[in-house]
């Protein structure tokens, strides 16, 4: 092996390190399994995080004092905390109080809360940015507060929230890679396991490619959403 390494050109050594065909073949199934786990988590986190954030922003619009204090505290604390801290607290702390969650559940819940905190602030800023005249016009025709919020205010607010929201959703979803530290078999988890068994960096490169394949469509869809919402009857 040493002999072989010394006779290699730098180019060959690069290929051998990152794109070793034998290693690729051997660990592809594990990486694919990890890919599915990461994909599931990404979709779950985006859907539940955005829905929870939207629900909190809507609740906040009713301006019930004690409720709003809670929502603001939740949003501020979760935006301040690094998700990793919460992941560790939930995974290693909760079993002591009798709640043991799988690594998958911990990542899903923590990242949902983190995304919801940012989404709530983004939706809330969007709701506030709609002209007060829109509320007045709708209420003057007899629409209730809730009807006005849902049919008049949110459709306008959401338009403004698309760019910051898609960026934030992508950033939070990429944090699924933190699952590695609590033994989650996502793409990165599978790749680091494979790397320690094989002693090759190839599985890590496979993980990188998998992330690009997974997140590139997100980024493209985000870009499309942004341009669509920006230009419609501007």
């Amino acid at each position, binding site marked *: 092996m040493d002999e072989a390494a010394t006779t290699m050109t730098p180019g060959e050594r690069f290929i051998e390190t990152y794109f070793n065909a034998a290693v690729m073949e051997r660990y592809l199934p594990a990486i694919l399994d990890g890919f599915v786990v990461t994909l599931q988590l990404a979709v779950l986190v985006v859907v539940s995080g955005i829905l929870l954030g939207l629900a909190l922003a809507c609740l906040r619009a009713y301006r019930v004092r004690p409720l709003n204090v809670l929502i603001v505290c939740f949003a501020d604390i979760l935006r301040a905390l690094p998700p990793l801290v919460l992941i560790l607290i939930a995974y290693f702390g909760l079993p002591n109080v009798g709640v043991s969650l799988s690594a998958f559940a911990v990542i899903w819940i923590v990242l949902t809360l983190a995304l919801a905190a940012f989404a709530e602030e983004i939706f809330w800023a969007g709701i506030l940015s709609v002209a007060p*005249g*829109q509320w*007045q*016009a709708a209420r*003057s*025709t007899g629409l209730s507060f809730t009807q006005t919020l849902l049919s008049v205010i949110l459709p306008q607010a959401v338009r403004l929230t698309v760019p910051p929201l898609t960026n934030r959703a992508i950033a939070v979803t990429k944090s699924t890679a933190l699952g590695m530290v609590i033994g989650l078999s996502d793409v990165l988890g599978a790749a680091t396991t494979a790397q320690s068994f094989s002693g090759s960096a190839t599985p890590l490169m496979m993980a990188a490619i998998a992330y690009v394949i997974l997140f590139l469509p997100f980024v493209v869809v985000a870009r499309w959403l942004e341009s669509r919402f920006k230009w419609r009857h501007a």
Partner: protein
Amino acid sequence: MTRPSTSSIAADRLVSDARAERGSILELIALHKSYGPLDVLKGIDLKVKPGEMVFLIGPSGSGKSTLLRCCNRLEEPTSGAVIVEGEDITAPSVDLNKARRRIGMVFQSFNLYPHKTALGNVTLALVKVSRLSRAAAREKAMAALADVGLADKAAAYPAELSGGQQQRVAIARALALEPKVMLFDEPTSALDPELVGDVLDVMRKVRAAGMTMLVVSHEMRFAAEAADRVVFMDGGVIVEEGPPSAVFGAPREARTQAFLSRVKH
């Protein structure tokens, strides 16, 4: 009491007698509104009879918009009552959303929903509040748009319409709910001068159809021609009121005279 039934003057008198008998359709009683220490409305008493067009004029900050917005409780009156068709809509038991259907409102800045077409703007409350079917709402909305001369713009978004057209859609949106009273807050102030006429024409038409209207406006010529009554407000109180010929032609109060000489020049 005999009347020459062929005379149009007598006919007018019959109509106004009938109005007096039916009482007022909108009545404000001792209406007060304050924002903290600032007293904006200091006891307003006003009766508007069915089919009457009342113009509310006065200097900036005198409380005209606040008064209109108290009429449908977009602003909560601090005290006093707002009676619409005999019902006190400031009573705690009142269904405010239902009451608001009887009070149409048109705003200075149109306030059309930018994400909906002209038709969508008009149908929204018909579907959500009046609970009409989509088809029935559409039919009614198209009729309302035709009334303001914009049937051909039903599919246009507000951003594709001129200010005058937007304001006419806003009038159609209010009219489609078949209100008993229409409130107009400076409906032409945000318009280019050449677009004002179209909106005033629509308002004339609405009046001719018998709608009761309470209008805040600086269009004094329009007021002189179309109003049944002009109410001059200053500092949160009604200073003077009467037919336009009296208020414009021979104002009694010094404050009215000062205001009119300022707006005429």
